[in-house]
């Protein structure tokens, strides 16, 4: 989905994709704590659109000639030639910057959907054993965000208790420093707790084999990153994509065989991949594929021109993509609902770190 969104700046297509994502989230999210993040991601998206437009209007390159209004412009010294501040604002500029901002916003919405539909831990469990350790690190990083938000609320309240106004660079320092200290402390505690519970036991793998597996894993991940970039960015050189992905697959496979085969780790009640799950995965692939093909056949429709300004049209294949993106909303299995107990849905903390719900 995110991949599909990256390939277009067509507002109509983007809106359809966004609608699909929102539908899937609305119909399939559980009431677990991580499921409430979609709204925040949407807000973040709107914020991004706004910022993007303001910056473009002030600093953007002048295109088109449908004049809307003129901002006072500032003459810059000669070394900053090429950078303009203020000046005439055209409808084309606004449309262009809105479209690019909107693309980012839809991308954020896709990540928000991912976040609210699946707990990071469940995704970690779906990874093959060889990626497990890298995966745990990622999970920890994801889990850090809500912790940091709670901690900063606590710190802001503490400042109010001291009778201080929470603003300005000094306030920022007052919050950022303890926040980082807190994060470091927590990560040490977490590392200790994981170690104590046997995380990272090496089993009986010979060291040479282990090093080879780790090397292959690292190189494979890098190749995979290059390949993914190629898929997402239409301007990346074509010839890079397929070889990069092929190399990634081979290296990751090797790492899997070398390391995973002897891994002493087992999985508790693994998530089973049944019909509905395959359908969800397939619909995602169809969405991306449809957009890729549409981009090749009809590039102009996906990136409609701004000069002259015109109303975007919807290519058929893009429609297919949006409909495909819609499918998981119906096909995906219901998430187990968590009983809406008092403490479950609205934990009331027993200290002063009270966030207005």
């Amino acid at each position, binding site marked *: 989905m995110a991949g599909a969104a990256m390939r277009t700046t067509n507002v109509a297509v983007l809106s359809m994709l966004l609608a699909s994502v929102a539908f899937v989230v609305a119909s399939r999210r559980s009431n*677990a*704590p991580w499921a409430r993040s979609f709204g925040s991601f949407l807000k973040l998206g709107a914020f991004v659109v706004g910022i993007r437009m303001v910056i473009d209007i002030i600093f953007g390159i002048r295109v088109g000639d449908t004049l809307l209004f003129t901002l006072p412009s500032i003459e810059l010294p000669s070394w900053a030639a090429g950078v303009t501040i203020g000046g005439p604002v055209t409808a084309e500029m606004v449309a262009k910057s809105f479209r690019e901002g909107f693309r980012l916003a839809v991308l954020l919405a896709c990540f928000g959907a991912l976040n609210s539909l699946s*707990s*990071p*831990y469940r995704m970690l*469990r779906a990874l093959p054993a060889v990626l497990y350790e890298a995966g*745990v690190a990622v*999970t920890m990083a994801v889990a850090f965000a*809500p912790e940091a938000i709670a901690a900063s609320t*606590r*710190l802001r309240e*503490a*400042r109010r*208790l*001291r*009778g*201080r106004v929470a603003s300005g660079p000094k306030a920022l320092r*007052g919050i950022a420093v*303890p926040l980082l*200290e807190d994060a470091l*402390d*927590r990560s*040490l*505690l*977490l*590392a*200790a*707790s*994981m*170690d*104590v*519970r*046997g*995380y*990272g*036991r090496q*089993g009986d793998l010979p060291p040479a084999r282990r090093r080879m597996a780790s090397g292959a894993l690292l190189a494979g991940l890098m190749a995979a990153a290059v390949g993914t970039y190629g898929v997402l960015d239409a301007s990346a050189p074509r010839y890079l994509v397929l070889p990069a992905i092929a190399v990634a697959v081979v290296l990751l496979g090797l790492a899997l065989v070398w390391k995973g085969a002897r891994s*002493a*780790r*087992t*999985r*508790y*009640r693994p998530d089973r991949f049944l019909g509905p799950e395959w359908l969800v995965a397939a619909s995602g692939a169809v969405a991306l594929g449809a957009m890729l093909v549409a981009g090749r056949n009809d590039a102009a429709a996906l990136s409609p021109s701004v000069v002259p300004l015109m109303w975007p049209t919807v290519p058929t294949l893009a429609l297919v993509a949006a409909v495909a993106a819609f499918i998981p909303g119906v096909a995906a299995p219901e998430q*187990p609902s*968590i009983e809406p*107990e008092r*403490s*479950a*849905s*609205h*934990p*009331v*903390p*027993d*200290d*002063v*770190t*009270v966030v*207005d*719900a």
Partner: protein
Amino acid sequence: MIRFDDATFTYADTVAPTLRSVDLAIPEGSFALVVGETGAGKSTLLQMVNGLAPRFTGGTLQGRVAVAGRSTADHPPRELADVVGYVGQSPSAGFVADTVEHELAFVMENLGVAPDAMRRRVEDVLDLLGLHEIRNRPLGTLSGGQQQRVAIGSVLAASPGVLVLDEPTSALDPAAAEDVLAALSRLVHDLGVTVLAAEHRLERVVHLADLALLVGADGGVVTGEPGPVLGGSLLAPPVIRLGVANQWTPLPLSVRDARRRAGDASSGRAALRDRLKAAGPSVGRRPRRTAGDVVATVRSVGAGYGPITALKGIDLDLRAGEITALMGRNGSGKSTLLSLLVGLRSPQRGEILVRGHRPSDDPRAVKLVPQDAGTLLFESTVEAECASGDHDAGAPAGTTSEWLDRLVPGVSRGAHPRDLSEGQRLALALAVVLVDDPDVLLLDEPTRGLDHLAKVRLIAALDELAAEGRAIVIATHDVEVVAEVADRAIVLAAGEVVADGSAREVVCQSPVFAPQVAKILSPAEWLTVDEVVAALAVVEQVGRP
């Protein structure tokens, strides 16, 4: 099961060793309690058992530490996961998975337990610790007692022979602590697990212990039966101190033992209970402070979070010079009430007035020291903290520093607030709020993490502050502190006031909130060992010809 042979531990940046030549042998299936002042090295001792110290903490270990015959020198903590389960001070910081069930399975996944065995074992642990009702709940939504039990379960799933626990009940309300302790005692008695635990709230655990390890300030460790080891220590819980005061041998460890002794006439003396009865109703008892004018009024106040009602219809008057204890289980609305009083939140219904103003209009009249006092401190040295305290309050330079010296003399001005002891940090936080000279002082769980000496200091300070005519409210689970200092007790349950009256009556009549002395001597209403000792002295003087 656990052996320390001449083990000495020194942290990297210190000269003197934290623990010196420790020799220990803890037999299988025993419950050993680690006791000591804050900073004496209790946590270090616990972390040495599975090698977290020095592998995670830094420092050097001389001598040998071994568990089940495996030395920590050759086995990192992860290779000891199948013999030692370690639960640190804040269990929620160590959670890895999303739900209870998967958290329990984490250690077995790492150990490579076969899936069907793992499935069975998870069910066993859920039953053992009473977690089956919350098996699918996300970890972030659990209460403190549940989190603690899940953390114990998450190491227990590997069926280790040794369980190491750092302050398992310190943060819990009395009822949640009971749940955790009941689970622990089942593990010791039914499964023969060896437990090594450190705990400040000795009165909660001492009756479970077979062994006590007293960590001294010099780094030496005294080992033995809990009664004799603790009898001579200031850290002893009331039940043991009462035994010492009455020269009972052997010293009682549980309320049940002590009640029996209090009813026995022995060695030519009448039973303790009868002698106290002879002393009359008011002899020796701590008088209730005379309360002054009403400084704060709370009128039919309600508040909530979303659909949840946290407080409903609260009516209270706070009077000058009175110390009020706010009690109740976690989530009963104590902290919400404090944040309303201090003006962090506004009530949804009703009104709160302090000296005739809303708290948010006159923020200097009410001050709150939150649970983690350290969050009030922003600067990097004590000196800078004092200066910013003066600056914020517009007070003459040096006022905060004077307050700090009054509360705890001799705090190093160059130290980072994080490096202070718990007691010193609390004193510094108190100093920065007292600069504003508030009429109402609120403290949320002030005794958490405080050792005996720091508690004595805090109690003396609260006494002085009340004598100056401040209204003081402490929200606390620590019934022994309530017994020592409070005049009035308010019990909240589900957002409502269920009891409000003299602290003596309220706590003595409740089986949950009664201090140990009250439990031993009920139905007579005695709160502390000092009261009993004072009354006995009077009785003996009168009895003498």
